[in-house]
């Protein structure tokens, strides 16, 4: 199966060695690919100028970082509009499902990496606020009389509506953070929210700080996915949860063909017409194809030290939510 895949790619894509390297990475045969699961970290320390993929292009690793930055810098303003257009609004459901899986309680400290425009953070705040209100309602209904202090606090509005929950949104891109902050101001989110400029491969936080780490549609843009996973392991508290929402491989062949047709024919056109940017959206659909499958990614997460790693495919595998625990 793996060799067939190699043969197919070889005749398909021409004689570029990098393409064969990529196919070997997928099958796990060749261990010299930096972001693969086998022998990866060792070799990436030896060869500083290794090559990686940027969509279907081959670029050096330093180049990739800069190129990804430019992509998100240019799409930032129309990011949310394009998400709605491209997924026909379904991305909202995916993000809601991520929150449902997370089931945060008041007091949860969330780190949302590559959180840019704040979709996950705002949903988290809404969820926790609703939970807190629900808890208060239940208290009142159960005839548990509030103490005078609690009533006084209510009148003074001193009670934290989030119940101690905090979310830190971390992104490498200034433009995306800017848009996120504007959205927060426009939608009235003030408390419990912090915006930090940081790199997923080198997070500016201490060890054992957060209860939940999420990364939604961001990890495929990271140059060294294994480093990002290790950082995630580091900043989580013991017992903390890692959640990743990302595009993945479709398991149904018919839907896969339709999905490919839609991705490659329609999405760059949408990008050109709505955002005036064909190339960024071409990169987007290509980067989705380059990302490992659900099982491979699960193995990568396990390699980083997480346990009880599971995944759930949504919409026939177009996206998948991976979850792991630091125990």
């Amino acid at each position, binding site marked *: 199966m793996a060799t*067939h895949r190699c043969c197919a790619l070889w005749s398909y*894509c021409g004689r570029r060695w990098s393409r064969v390297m990529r196919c070997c990475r997928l099958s796990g045969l060749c261990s010299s690919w930096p972001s693969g699961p086998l022998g990866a970290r060792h070799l990436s320390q030896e060869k500083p100028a290794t090559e990686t993929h940027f969509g279907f292009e081959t670029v050096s690793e330093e180049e990739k970082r800069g190129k990804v930055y430019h992509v998100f810098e240019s799409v930032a303003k129309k990011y949310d509009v394009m998400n709605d257009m491209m997924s026909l609004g379904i991305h909202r459901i995916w993000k809601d499902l991520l929150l449902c899986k997370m089931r945060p309680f008041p007091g949860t400290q969330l780190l949302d990496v590559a959180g840019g425009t704040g979709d996950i953070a705002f949903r988290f705040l809404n969820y926790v606020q609703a939970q807190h209100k629900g808890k208060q309602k239940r208290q009142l209904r159960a005839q548990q009389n509030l103490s005078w202090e609690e009533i006084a606090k209510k009148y003074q509005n001193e009670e934290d509506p989030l119940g101690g929950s905090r979310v830190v949104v971390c992104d490498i891109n200034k433009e995306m953070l800017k848009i996120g902050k504007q959205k927060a101001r426009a939608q009235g989110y003030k408390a419990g929210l912090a915006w930090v400029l940081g790199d997923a491969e080198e997070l500016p936080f201490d060890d054992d700080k957060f209860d939940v780490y999420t990364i939604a549609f961001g990890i495929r843009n990271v140059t060294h996915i294994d480093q990002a996973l290790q950082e995630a392991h580091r900043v989580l508290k013991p017992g903390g949860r890692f959640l990743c929402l990302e595009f993945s491989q479709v398991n149904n062949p018919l839907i896969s063909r339709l999905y490919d047709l839609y991705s490659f024919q329609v999405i760059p056109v949408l990008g*050109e017409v709505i955002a005036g940017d064909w190339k960024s959206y*071409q990169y987007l659909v290509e980067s989705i194809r380059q990302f490992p499958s659900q099982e491979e990614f699960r193995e990568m997460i396990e390699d980083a030290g997480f346990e009880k790693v599971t995944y759930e495919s949504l919409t026939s595998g177009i996206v998948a939510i991976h979850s792991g625990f630091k125990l």
Partner: protein
Amino acid sequence: MAMLLRSALRPLRALGGRRGPAADVWLRGARHGAGLLYPGHIPTSPLQKALLAAGSAGMALYNPYRHDMVAVLGETTGYYALKFLRDQMRKDPEGAEILQKRPRISLSTLDLDKLRSLPEGSLGQEYLRFLDVNRVSPDTRAPTRFVDDEELAYVIQRYREVHDILHTLLGMPTNLLGEITVKWFEAVQTHLPMCILGALFGPIRLSAQSLQVLISELIPWAVQNGHRAPCVLNLYYERRWEQPLRALREELGITDAPHVHVRGLA
């Protein structure tokens, strides 16, 4: 081997399932490196061109400030018109020279000081004055991306760069009324679907008074001149900067623009 490939490809969801490199382009769109005919070229399938044409037409109507959408519409719908234009250029000696030498009009290729020093009433002077008064620059023209023939890509690029010179020749400002008039002239000259669509749908956004002026005076004048003048892409404008504008207009058979006074327009 082909049978092996075919059976191997069936379970390979990641590759899109189509066979052969041609189908690969069809499904996967633009490639990197191979297949690019000129810098900035994005190869597109017929489906993508159709979607682009429809999308850009809609967006251009919705938001007239999206000049890039007008450009994309021109590129995706102009195949036959561009071939016709190219053949026109090949038949004319000056046009054939342009096709061979491929001159470009941009701020980097224009010698602005020399143009400014030209006598009053010359093409170069009037062109610069037009750029200054209307605050436009030849560098704002989008580069060609979706034309799949390298020579035709140059033809449409030349058409875009000559557009401002046409404004100067016709004496039309860059407000909506002026642009529509120039579009009518261009539609008759080039037969580009984008010009025809722009000429027909542009007036939707005009006021009643402007529309009346357009229909009664400007359109007949533009159409007459368009028919009378030879192909405007056949002029090597870079050699004609010193030529007095009046003489050039006489050569092309372009009459003076009708004086129109519309409230609210210069």
